[in-house]
């Protein structure tokens, strides 16, 4: 009996017989080499078996995950990218972290419009077709929620790379420069600010200085070469390179120019940083330089002493990553890691460093320096300035404790 027929039969039979069937098949790990595994002695699925591809079934654990106890409802909540299983600077579209305030709307692009008005010469209403006719640009940028790492402000809480750093993702975005659209409507002299607003139930809106809008903001309809995912703002979103995730308005439907900022709920009640003296910082848009070792990490322990490649990601909203140093002893000594091309402005940058682990306990950490000379701070340095109630913008050095059995834990150093 051929193996394929045998398998088919096994599946059709009852549970106990199916188990018997399994035992009859050669265990590829035991027998190969030299024996061929079943997939080498059979014919695979044909083209368009999966017209839109998907990861291998054995990668089913590599998914966005949430912290159910963190928020009251999944509609106003966040999910985290599985950084521990990603290998480059581009986040696959299905794994890009999510942050919604009124759930994910499923928008008909034929009905979606972008309105640009306020202090402009010629207010416009654009369809998706109109927007796609404008000269297009593609740029690679990260987006990070400023609350990424927020759960570790007070103490090391999340024993996981995914949950401590997974609110950052990076994609190639394609769309129109916002400056092109604003020139097309004609900016009136008094205009200094823009209010950007989404078409979701939150009608999410934020104020942006006009200078930033004209500098490098993009109105995008594509992500990594395909249409935006609904979770990322389909059919249209704003990308504000290097600035906190919340201003990168998804499902973008309106841009209004004005003389002053709006002080919306999301830039007063939220996304402001409470200091120990009771004052708050508002309009703290910039994502400061940050880095993290992605291997080893709590999800990816070490497998006995020997030679390893330390791997990690670094990024800054303030230009390019210039250097990353890695320490294995909790910051006593540092070695400069290798940066991998491409090193792009306001994009994730990959670094690696070979490490021969002797099996003794270690404290592994990375520290990025950006092109302005800014050095990623320790959590103690941040707390000295901001206390531990500011929720947002925790860009501190992450330390992973490696125990002698190879297991890895999220720790903070005094």
């Amino acid at each position, binding site marked *: 009996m051929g193996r394929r027929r045998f398998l088919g039969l096994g599946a059709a039979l009852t549970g106990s017989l199916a188990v018997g069937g399994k035992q009859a098949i050669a265990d590829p790990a035991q027998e190969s080499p030299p024996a061929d595994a079943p997939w080498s002695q059979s014919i695979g699925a044909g083209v368009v078996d999966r017209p839109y591809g998907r990861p291998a079934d054995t990668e089913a654990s590599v998914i966005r995950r949430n912290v159910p106890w963190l928020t009251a409802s999944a509609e106003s909540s966040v999910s985290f990218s599985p950084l521990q299983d990603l290998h480059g600077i581009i986040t696959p579209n299905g794994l890009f972290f999510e942050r919604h305030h009124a759930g994910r709307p499923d928008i008909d692009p034929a009905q979606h419009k972008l309105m640009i008005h306020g202090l402009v010469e010629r207010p416009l209403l654009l369809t998706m077709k109109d927007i796609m*006719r404008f000269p297009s640009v593609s740029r690679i940028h990260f987006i990070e929620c400023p609350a990424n790492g927020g759960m570790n402000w007070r103490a090391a809480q999340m024993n996981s790379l995914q949950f401590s750093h997974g609110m950052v993702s990076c994609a190639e975005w394609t769309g129109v420069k916002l400056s092109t659209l604003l020139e097309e409507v004609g900016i009136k002299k008094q205009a200094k600010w823009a209010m950007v607003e989404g078409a979701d139930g939150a009608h999410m809106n934020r104020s942006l200085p006009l200078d930033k809008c004209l500098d490098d903001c993009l109105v995008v309809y594509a992500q990594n070469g395909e249409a935006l995912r609904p979770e990322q703002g389909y059919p249209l979103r704003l990308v504000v390179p290097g600035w906190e995730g919340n201003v990168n308005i998804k499902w973008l439907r309106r841009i209004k120019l004005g003389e002053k900022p709006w002080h919306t709920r999301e830039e007063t009640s939220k996304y402001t940083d409470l200091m120990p003296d009771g004052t708050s910082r508002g309009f703290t848009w910039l994502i400061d330089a940050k880095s993290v070792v992605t291997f080893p990490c709590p999800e990816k322990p070490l497998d006995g002493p020997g030679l390893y490649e330390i791997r990690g990601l670094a990024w800054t909203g303030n230009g390019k990553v210039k250097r990353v140093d890695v320490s294995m002893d909790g910051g006593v000594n540092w070695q400069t890691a290798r940066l991998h091309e491409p090193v792009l402005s306001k994009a994730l940058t990959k670094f690696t460093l070979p490490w021969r682990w002797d099996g003794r306990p270690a404290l592994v950490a990375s520290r990025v320096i950006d092109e302005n000379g800014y050095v990623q701070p320790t959590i103690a340095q941040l707390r000295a300035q901001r206390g531990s109630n500011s929720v947002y913008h925790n860009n501190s050095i992450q330390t992973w404790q490696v125990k002698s059995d190879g297991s890895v834990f999220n720790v903070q150093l005094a």
Partner: protein
Amino acid sequence: MYSSRKICLPIIAILLACAANLAGAAEPGSFGYGSVATPAQIAGWDIDVRGEDGTGLPPGNGTVDRGAEVYAEQCAACHGTFGEGEGRFPKLVGGVGSLRDERPEPTVGSYWPFAPTLWDYINRAMPMQAPHTLSADDVYALTAYILNLNDLVPHEFVADRNSLPKVKMRNRDNFIWTDPRPDTMTKPCMNDCVNAADVRISSTAEGRNLTPRTTGPLDTMQQK
């Protein structure tokens, strides 16, 4: 011939660059895509309100008592009858004087700097399951009710486009609207940066039992 070409070419290049620049300075409407938004179309979407001075607040008004009625129907299930917040849903009252505490409670009463922002947020985002479905009058009434719950306005207060910008919010003057970062600066030391004997773990996530699993199906853990 050869030398004049050498001179001419840069001049032509400059002229071309100027012409391109003129085109690039883009007169409004130079692409001509889309349609000019009509005043009626703009009015349909023009919902934003400026927090500081209430610019954009529409006509209409609402009382604290009317607000209490709408609130009981549309908001109390999540935010609690008196704004105390059900479960993990946000509190709308309390926390006054707590902002310097170990566990501060930022709310409308303790934290929000501008009252018109409250009208704007309720109007655009609440109630959560049916956002932007309330009348302007009801949003005014809810705003009056929540401000009154927070002892920011008296029971007779009527919220409208003139009264809301005048409400003095407790935390109004405690925001700094310019970013003082970078607020840490260090030199990147490479060797013997700290005394090895002083390296001490001050906190660990080990054994805290707060982290959902990161393999297998999604975790449903709730906080203990």
